[in-house]
């Protein structure tokens, strides 16, 4: 039967304490070491910047474009890159569930919420930096390409609307990515997660718009996509929420989803 431990040679410890910093480093290593990360991040940048450069804000009329129109071309690109970031966000968790890696990850991070905060921190920071940079780049390049005369652009950051739209597009993209991450953490399956995202952001708003009588469409502005869109929506439609209210609502949805993800991760089986 069990005998007392006989230590032949002492085992020097190599593993230190589990720390938030350690988990953040680990998550960065995971994030950077998979190819799909770089494909989807490049797609985001290319879409945001590309659309702004190739879609002329002035249209065919040849008239000098307004500040809102310039910012709007940033918006078009952002709507597309939103999709890429949602996919990337969903896959942060579902990728680990799909391969079974999640059990290896959680077995070394038994305080499970650390894993959620680590993923959120790394993904959030990367996505925020990248979407702000690409949204600014989209606006700057778009303005330089499409301004009617050489020299300094006539629409620039001094315009408060421009600043709001350009910075706002970056913020909305980052929060949308985290929205996707939370959905992935809750649903745990890539295909189901992506379908859910597509339904919430693209299919449902469209169906509701078609199905509902126009008098009942006020609540469409409460959909996550429209709430976030309010911040970058240059030509505010009368039905839209005010920019920062809309953004706050998107943040609220996202926070609620993250809370559900935390609850699910913490109490259930891995």
């Amino acid at each position, binding site marked *: *039967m*069990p*005998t*007392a*431990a*006989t*230590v*032949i*040679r002492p*085992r*020097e*410890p*190599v*593993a*230190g*304490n*589990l*720390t938030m910093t*350690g*988990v953040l*480093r*680990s*998550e960065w*290593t*995971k994030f950077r*070491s*998979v*190819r*799909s990360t770089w494909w989807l991040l490049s797609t985001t940048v290319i879409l945001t910047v590309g659309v702004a450069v190739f879609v002329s804000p002035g249209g065919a009329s040849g008239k000098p474009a307004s500040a809102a129109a310039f910012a709007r071309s940033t918006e078009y690109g952002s709507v597309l890159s939103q999709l890429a970031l949602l996919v990337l966000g969903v896959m942060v968790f579902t*990728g*680990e569930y799909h*391969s*079974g*890696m999640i*059990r*290896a*990850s*959680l*077995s*070394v*991070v*038994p*305080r499970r919420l650390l894993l959620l905060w680590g993923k959120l921190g790394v993904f959030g920071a990367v996505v925020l930096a990248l979407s702000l940079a690409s949204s600014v780049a989209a606006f700057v390049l778009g303005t330089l390409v499409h301004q009617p005369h050489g020299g300094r652009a006539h629409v620039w950051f001094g315009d408060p609307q421009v600043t709001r739209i350009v910075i706002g597009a970056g913020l909305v993209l980052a929060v949308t990515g985290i929205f996707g991450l939370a959905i992935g953490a809750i649903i745990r399956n890539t295909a189901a997660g992506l379908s859910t995202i597509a339904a919430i952001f693209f299919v449902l708003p469209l169906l509701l718009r078609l199905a509902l009588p126009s008098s009942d469409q006020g609540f469409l502005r409460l959909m996550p996509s429209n709430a976030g869109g309010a911040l970058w929506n240059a030509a505010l439609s009368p039905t839209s929420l005010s920019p920062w209210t809309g953004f706050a609502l998107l943040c609220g949805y996202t926070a609620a989803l993250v809370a559900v993800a935390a609850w699910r991760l913490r*109490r*259930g*089986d*891995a």
Partner: protein
Amino acid sequence: MIEVENLTKRYGDKVAVDGLTFSVAPGVVTGFLGPNGAGKSTTLRMIAALDVPTSGRVRVNGRDYRSSPAPMAELGLLLEAKAVHPGRSARDHLLAIGQTAGIGKARVNEVIEMVGLGDVARKRVGGFSLGMGQRVGIAVALLGRPRTVVMDEPVNGLDPEGVRWIRALLRTLADEGCTVFYSSHLMSEMAQTATNLIVIGRGRLISDSTVEQFIAKTTATSVVVRSPEAARLRGLLGRADVRIASDGPDLLRIDGITPEEVGTIALQAGVPVFDLRVERASLEEAFMQATHDSVEYGATGLENL
């Protein structure tokens, strides 16, 4: 040290683990046996705090694993082969796991060499064979130099050289004072490696003893004698508590008697004996004997083959 106390896990109506209590001591290799569906993997996942018990509790090195300040120094775990993103290299995988506990590239490289993945460490794991994937999992389990190592089917997919290697590895860990607990369905392999044995069936404890005790108490130990005068010897050994069977014209298989008694009786009667040995059942026979009532997914026979 692993202590499992009244551990129960239910999935809806189905009870996977049913009031299991046992402990695994440091310094020896302990095997974990049970038929398919007996609840081995569920138990191992609960030990690692991956599955949440319906009731009961588990302690690893004296504490709840979830509250351990340095988890990687406490428990090394191998659950399934290739639980790795297929697009990631083995090196990045190990680095990501290790970084949670401040383990850096030097230790990662050391462990990669130790498990024999030095040549492929930078390749994507998606292209690895089952055996190579298994080595990645073993490397993860050893990375933090943990005090307790838990492995589910570590020899799965390994070649004979790999099987020998894992046997030596588990024994060395135990010799160094580690708690080593592993499951395997290769019983001849387990008989050679493990000292202690936990056997479960349908989620319940069937046996908790050494491998030898398990075999001895589950199956009869027979004395086999070969003699040209087998029939005469048979007559001499006739006793109420002794059962004798003939395995051949000059071969006797005797239960309920020691080889010393048989040898002495034969000598006194002048019966020549060419072979006198004790035949113990194998671990596999003992296992079949102990678990035949608790086989969850039994085949029904070969009549319809």
